[in-house]
């Protein structure tokens, strides 16, 4: 286990990290999680929705073919169970790491009424309280809400509504624990992070450029990791507008950042970061929806890099 990164910490990209058995492909790797053994779970939109690698990028196994509508978010708990958010299926599934279904929240394929606040309308991500196992779900593309469940999936409460004031959301896209008593939400289209107590009391907001993904460090690494999305079309091509990873302390103070000033396909660039995870060595995995954002618009369409590893090399 590593300590929290500092401003002296150096990260470097690991080119071609994931080694996919031919002809397996991601199409795009929407989200990524790391288990207690530092194995890496990639929830993707190819024909094999969950693909598992060791930390060197060697393929271990895959499961879930045909069982998901649109993979979106993946989280692992302390016992290495998986929580999979499928936005277009309007469901969250808890599965063992071997893929066995333990329970499902929401009814597969049946959304709650748009923006009514009930679970779920295109939920995006899950955070798990490390001691109680309570679940916090960001919801999502068709709602403006965070839902809290106990560890068995019993509903506890919800908060949030559409808007731009404190406690309101415009596309809550990711959620992470912030210590054991708070959660931080990527309020994506409000260009801010919002932190709440685990009871849903607003604590603070932090400006961020279209924050799309958040995760917390493992063990003694108390930092939060935030991936920022790129700008709207009117600002396309302008430098330093998102497409990078910000490492911050729990108060939201920036520690360091990495990624090029411009998006792209080079090893130090991002195209469309969408989720991230950190392993016990402090290395960072970033999953990107780079097919949706870029590859699908090429002629001919093509798969482009959608999973990056940045190794923590010093500091």
């Amino acid at each position, binding site marked *: 286990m590593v300590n929290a990164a500092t401003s002296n910490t150096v990260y470097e990209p690991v080119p071609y990290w994931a080694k996919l058995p031919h002809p397996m492909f991601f199409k795009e790797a929407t989200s990524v999680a790391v288990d207690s053994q530092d194995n890496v779970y990639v929830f993707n939109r190819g024909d094999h929705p969950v693909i598992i690698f060791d930390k060197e990028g060697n393929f271990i196994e895959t499961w879930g073919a045909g069982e998901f509508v649109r993979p979106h978010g993946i989280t692992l708990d302390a016992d290495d169970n998986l929580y999979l958010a499928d936005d277009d299926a309007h469901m969250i599934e808890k599965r063992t790491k071997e893929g066995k279904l333990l329970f499902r929240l929401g009814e597969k394929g049946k959304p709650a009424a748009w923006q009514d606040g009930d679970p779920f309308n295109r939920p995006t991500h899950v955070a798990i309280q490390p001691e109680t196992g309570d679940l916090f779900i960001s919801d999502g593309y068709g709602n403006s809400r965070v839902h809290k469940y106990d560890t068995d999936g019993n509903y506890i409460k919800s908060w949030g509504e559409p808007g731009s004031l404190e406690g309101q959301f415009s596309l809550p896209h990711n959620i992470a624990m912030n210590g054991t008593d708070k959660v931080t939400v990527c309020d994506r*289209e409000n260009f801010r992070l919002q932190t709440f107590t685990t009871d849903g009391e607003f604590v603070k907001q932090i400006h961020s450029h279209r924050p799309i993904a958040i995760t917390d460090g493992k063990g003694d690494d108390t930092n939060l990791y935030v991936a920022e999305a790129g700008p709207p079309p009117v600002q396309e091509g302008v430098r330093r507008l998102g497409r990078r990873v910000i490492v911050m302390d729990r108060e939201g103070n920036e520690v360091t950042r990495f990624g090029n000033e411009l998006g792209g396909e080079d090893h130090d660039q991002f195209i469309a970061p969408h989720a991230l995870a950190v392993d016990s060595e402090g290395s960072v995995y970033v999953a990107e929806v780079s097919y949706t954002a870029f590859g699908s618009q090429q002629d001919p369409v093509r798969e482009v890099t959608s999973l990056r590893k940045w190794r923590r090399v010093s500091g």
Partner: protein
Amino acid sequence: MTTATTETRFEPVAGWAKLPMGVTFKGDATSVAVDSKDNVYVFNRGSEPIAVFDTDGNFLRGMGHGEFVRPHGIEIDAQDNLYLVDDDGHFVQKRTNEGEVLFTLGTTGEPCEWQSGGMFNRPTDIAIHPETGELFVSDGYGNSRIHKFDSDGNHIISWGEPGTDPGQFSLPHNISMMGTDKVVVADRENFRLQVFSTDGEFVEQIHIHHPMSVTEGKGNDKAIYVGEMIPPPVQQGVPNLGAMIAVLSPDGEFQQHLGGPTPGAGVAQFTAPHGISTDSQGSIYAAEVAWTNYFSRPENSGTEEIPLGEIVSLRKWRRV
């Protein structure tokens, strides 16, 4: 007029501007300023680029026909001179109240290099120091910069660069004085206001939804009025996201929203409050780019062609 608060009541004035037959804003009133007599100047993309009204909305005169490329921003100084910002023309022009050109900053039709920090690449708005007459220009669609000039148009300093940190910009779209020692910038695609000293020192940032326009109240009204743009397409139709006027306290605390909860042509709604001003009575004028930013999109209007009839793009909300 006192500073507007949560208690202050505003009500929309339907059909305020009385346009003579043949005069049209073409759906894009774009920007508005009020002079010392509470006359209202609308810098628009229609037939009379500078259309002047009295406080009751009676048309007084039109100016500037054929003299602008794409009207974007207007401000009026303490002597009732006009400052006009033409983004696609890449210039800022000072004119007398009657429309005579006093000076032009920038060269018409000749931008500086994109995002180079020079002057100008699609400038957006201007603020004028009430005592010194110094000018602060936000620049803009092709730059990430604030330029400061003295009252004669001599360049003093510039600040800002592309980015999201304090002091960086992603489309600085509007600028206003805050008292006599600060300016506030609508950092539009960063979803925040940024406050600077008049020397360009960063003071603070204030979170707000997609700010297009910003102005300070007149006289003793020290409230900040912000026009919020609609959300990006992914959030289309979600209530309480932009297309509203936010009223903030002088230190940036939210007081109330006008309009909403969704965009529209209704009397108490907005589509794209692109320019904003207040008068001595505390009333608010909002000039919209209703065609360009809203109704030109088929998902909003059902058509790709500008309709024959006028599209509402100028709003007055009376302080009651």
